[in-house]
Structures are given as structure tokens and as C-alpha cells.
């Protein structure tokens, strides 16, 4: 037989919490119910507590951000990172390759007359392999000559003149 009135406030609170959480056996739960009937203030406090706990349901979950799992798999090394290029980046790269291709064709035709085999080789490589590595390997002087479409200047730059 449990006498809740004889318990300390802390002990009584623990028993009421156990009742609230459904941890008491049937006999003990019935005793608590009887005690609560005689103590309406405690019953109101228990009800207040229950409503507060339910109120926390208003704190709703937010959806997981789009692409989260893909980022996780990449960060963990399970999936290889995807190359993320924006549309305008792709358009700029395509325009650059086209310009280089056109320039290369022109220079290949002019190379025997202007003596610029180095540029022809570089641009052929660009055209054939679509790689920017060759472009990146140019010196500043070579690159400026290429932009100026000046084979003679490029030949000088290539030979270090």
C-alpha cells in the first residue's frame, strides 16, 4: 500500500511521473488515481504537464535539404564527386574551344609560311584532344600572341625571342 501523503514532495513527484509515463503496475496506478481524485490541484498540475508535452508537437520537423544524401556520399568517399558546371560556364568553355579550333585551322594553314610549328602543334593538340592543358602550358607571351592571332609574334615567343 502506497501512501503518497507520507512521501516527500520529490518522492511524490517521482511516483506521479511514473504514473504519467505508464511505469506503475495496475495496483499502484489505481492508488495514484484515488489520490489524485482527492487532490484536484495535483490532478490539474499533471494535466498541465501532459498538455505541455503534447504542445511540443508544434515543433515540427523540416525536410532534409535537397541533395543532402548525395553530398554525404561524396564526403564519405562512397561516391565520386560530380563535376558541377553552371550553364554559362559550359557555354563559355564551348565558345573558347570553338575559337581555338578556328584559330588552329588558320594557323596550321599559315604555319609553313610563318615558321610557327610550335603553335600549330599546340593547337592541333587542343583540337584533337579537346584539352585545355596545352593552353595552360603556354607562356604569357605565347598566349597574347595567340589572342592577337599573330603567328610571327607567336613564333618569336615560342623560341624565347
Amino acid at each position, binding site marked *: 500500500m502506497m501512501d503518497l501523503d507520507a512521501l516527500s514532495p520529490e518522492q511524490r*513527484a*517521482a511516483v506521479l*511521473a511514473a504514473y504519467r509515463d505508464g511505469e506503475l503496475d495496475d495496483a499502484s496506478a489505481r492508488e495514484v488515481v484515488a489520490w489524485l481524485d482527492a487532490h484536484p490541484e495535483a490532478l*490539474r498540475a499533471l*494535466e*498541465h*504537464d501532459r*498538455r*505541455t*508535452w*503534447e*504542445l*511540443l*508537437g*508544434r*515543433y*515540427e*520537423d*523540416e525536410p*532534409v*535539404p535537397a541533395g*543532402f*544524401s548525395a*553530398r*554525404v*556520399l561524396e*564526403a*564519405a*568517399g*562512397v*561516391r565520386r564527386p560530380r563535376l558541377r558546371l553552371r550553364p554559362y560556364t559550359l557555354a563559355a568553355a564551348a565558345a573558347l574551344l570553338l575559337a581555338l579550333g578556328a584559330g588552329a585551322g588558320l594557323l596550321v594553314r599559315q604555319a609553313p609560311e610563318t615558321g610557327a610549328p610550335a603553335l600549330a602543334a599546340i593547337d592541333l593538340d587542343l583540337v584533337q584532344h579537346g584539352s585545355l592543358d596545352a593552353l595552360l602550358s603556354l607562356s604569357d607571351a605565347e598566349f597574347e600572341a595567340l589572342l592577337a592571332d599573330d603567328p610571327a609574334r607567336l613564333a618569336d615567343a615560342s623560341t624565347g625571342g
Partner: protein
Amino acid sequence: MSPADADQDLMRRIQEGDPAAFEVLVHAYQGLVFSLVRRYLGSRYAGVDDVAQDVFVRIYRARHDWEPRARVKTWVYSITVNACLNEIRKLRSPKHRLVGSFTAVFGEGADGEGEAARGGGVADLHEPAAAGEGVTGAVAARVRSAVDGLPEQQRLATVLSRFHGCSHDEVAAVMGTTVPAVKSLLMRARDRLRRVLADLAAPGTVPAGDDA
């Protein structure tokens, strides 16, 4: 096969080097991890995404440490809590203490009574709802702020118990403490929430409940 058994099977496959199994685990647990990180670190914390990602990287790196007798869910929660604690320690370092938002996010220390004494966090409890949210949004904002304003340990126990349905045993296992300590934390948290949300949850006021 029960969900727990399915999780065990999944972990065994991950340990054997099956990348598809890890992908399944990420999809299965990302919502729970995100939810726990967000509520533990505070709903306004901007680094939730990064911490949640770090949790799964830690899980993958520690996959061989998992032992079949451990419940996968408890293990995942433990790693999540550790990642959050790491983030909290980082933000409490002298370098980050200068960041003004720190106290707004984490408020008081682990003991939890400092904020109440200072009166900090009270303003959070009157955080206005965003325009157009209405009464429902205002109530949700009050509840979010009330949970955010709980002391760290009380908040974690509350989140695991109320939002993740963990038993006292599970909360104790995740937090690395005892069941009586968890009960004490929850009792204090509930008492504080009852006071802070008194006008919303007292009998005879706006109906409480999940039906927002």
C-alpha cells in the same frame, strides 16, 4: 525481418564494403539525424547541414567499430550527439566566443541554470512569428524557442524522449548516463517548459496537441 534486424543486416553489408548499403542507411537515417541535430543545436543554428553531413562521414569511418550486439539506431544517435558536442565545444572556444550569435544559440552552460538567472532567453520566448504565419505559426515559434532555451542536457533528453520516442534506457545509453539521471533531467525540463509555456498549455487555454 524487423526494422532492427534489417538495420543489423545493413551494417554488416557496410562493414563488408557494400557502398549501396551505406546509401540505404543514409536515406533511412538522414531525417532522424537532421531532426536531432537541428533540435539539439537549436532551430536557428546555421550549421545544421554541415554537422548532419559530418555525422554520416563519422558513421562510415567508424563502420568497423560497430558491434552486432549494439542497436544501430542507438549507435547512430550516439555518433550524432558526439558530433553535436564537438560542434558545441568548437563554438565555445575563445575564437568563437566573439561571435554574437553564440549565446543566442546555446544560451547557458551545461548546468543550465545560468540563463534563467540572467533572464537570457526570455526574449526568445516572445520571438515573433514570421509575417503570415498567424496564430499557429506564433505558437510553433514559441514552442521552438522554449525547447531551444532549455539547458543543453535537458534539451537533449527532451528531444530524444519527446521527438524520437526513445525510452529512458535508450536516452541513458545515448547520453552515456544513468536512467535516474535521465528521469531527473526530464523532470526539470518538463517543469521549465510548463512554466515557460504556461499560457499556452494550462488547462482552459488554447488546446494543446499535435494538430497544428
